[in-house]
């Protein structure tokens, strides 16, 4: 599939700085690309896998079932990056899949996928100032972090039995079995 972007000389230098800044992996299979203002500006990290790159080097998911190389991986820092990525996917006919913990083997990742890696949205905050305590977490937060933040303050909520499952994904898909007991105690 043709990707409609240009990499000017200026962009390559800028890209290299970002590459170093993010401690990028030093593999010849990767290159970071800045999509210039001629199309949509994506200011965040973008990885376009080389056709020969093994998918495991591009994506780190729980299971290899149903997994093949995505068209590109976008790692947003801000909500604007996500909005830009959605627009980019629409314009190029790609299907956008947000990834949290990577534990959903039923999510089909193909060469028409724009994989939105939510790992930078990992903030977890416990607020016990109100009568009902609440735990807030970002789209890429993992179960482990939510467990640690809650229990270190003497609180709990319901979560799945795996540290690596993304909290958001587990809620969107119906929760989990291990949360049944704790859930029943609360209500």
């Amino acid at each position: 599939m043709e990707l409609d972007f240009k990499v000017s000389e200026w962009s390559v230098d800028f890209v290299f700085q970002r590459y170093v800044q993010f401690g990028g992996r030093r593999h010849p299979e990767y290159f970071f690309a800045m999509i210039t203002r001629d199309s949509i500006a994506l200011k965040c990290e973008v990885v376009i896998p080389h056709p020969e790159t093994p998918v495991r080097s591009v994506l780190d998911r729980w299971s290899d079932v149903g997994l093949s190389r995505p068209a590109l991986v976008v790692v947003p820092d801000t909500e604007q990056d996500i909005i830009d990525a959605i627009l980019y996917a629409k314009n190029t006919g790609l299907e956008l899949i947000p990834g949290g913990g990577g534990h959903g083997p039923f999510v089909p990742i193909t060469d028409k996928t724009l994989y939105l890696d939510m790992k930078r949205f990992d903030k977890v905050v416990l607020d016990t100032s109100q009568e009902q305590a609440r735990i807030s977490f970002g789209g890429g937060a993992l179960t482990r972090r939510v467990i640690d933040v809650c229990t270190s303050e003497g609180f709990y909520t319901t979560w799945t039995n795996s540290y690596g499952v993304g909290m958001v994904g587990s809620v969107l898909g119906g929760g989990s079995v291990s949360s049944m007991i704790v859930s029943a105690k609360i209500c």
Partner: protein
Amino acid sequence: MIMDQLISIRLITAAGEVLELDSTSLGEELGLFHALSGAGHGLGVVTSMTLKAFPLAALRMKNDEVWCRRVTFPADAINLAVEKYMQLLPPKPSQYVLLMFAREHVISTGSSAPIIILSSLYYGPEEEGEQASRPLFDQVIVNNSTIHSETVSTPLSQMNEAWASFSVHGEYKDISSAWLRTTPVETVKASFQQYMQFTDHYKDATRSTVVHATHNPQKHVAISQTLEGEAKYFESRDRGTCMLVMPWTSNPETVEPMRVFAKSIKALYRTAQPDSDLPRTFPNNMQADTQLEEMHTLDRIKELKRIKKLWDQSGVFWSPYGENR
């Protein structure tokens, strides 16, 4: 379920709009909030979520530890294992009973002999846990040298350690499940036979497991009778057991046989359910070929497709409810 603790969601839609949704949202936004509670794949990009949290002290667990009585049976003690499992049912409200088929090396550096692990977990005072787990202290277990039994207390914060080895990334793993009202003795024994046959035949799949996770559905039925509980997208509140098949292989050629195995176990249990029970699973455990009718009622499928079309006209987000399914 986790969704019953959901307070709010912050979401970016296909149109690039940022929405803050909660139970006070109105009209279509409220409908979207409910769909996100259990059938939320592909409706937007969630940037943040807020759940209710509760003081650990309210669970009244000694040292905030979950109490557990665990008994590991060799394969030839399957009859006794199933008998003890049945004696623990229905579980008490704070009790969680797990019956697991595995091969020994999954829990220790042993052989790959098939084993049955029966655990009774209690999220409350120790004395109540012991009382609820009486059958697991019987002489027939304690006096048998081939059966290993132990009582363990684990801080709630560390309960996931036991599953850490299943969480490693890589290789071919899957999870499929069936919500069941009943687990008859003969069906459980027959499924153990199938499990042994599958893992005996496919030596690269000996880390596969089958887990029957049983809780008391009473409180969950009560939740479903509230307006808010009823609005969430979850259909199996009145079924006490989730039977999970978790095949695992390092060999891509075993992926198709492992799918066949999982389907076969699910079908075995489903023929043993009342005729009026529709087959049920939930989205997190779906397969590529799972029919929507297995996860949601027909009315809800219609509604989810409508919601999908409304909030993502062009279908930019992958979804089980999109037009191409």
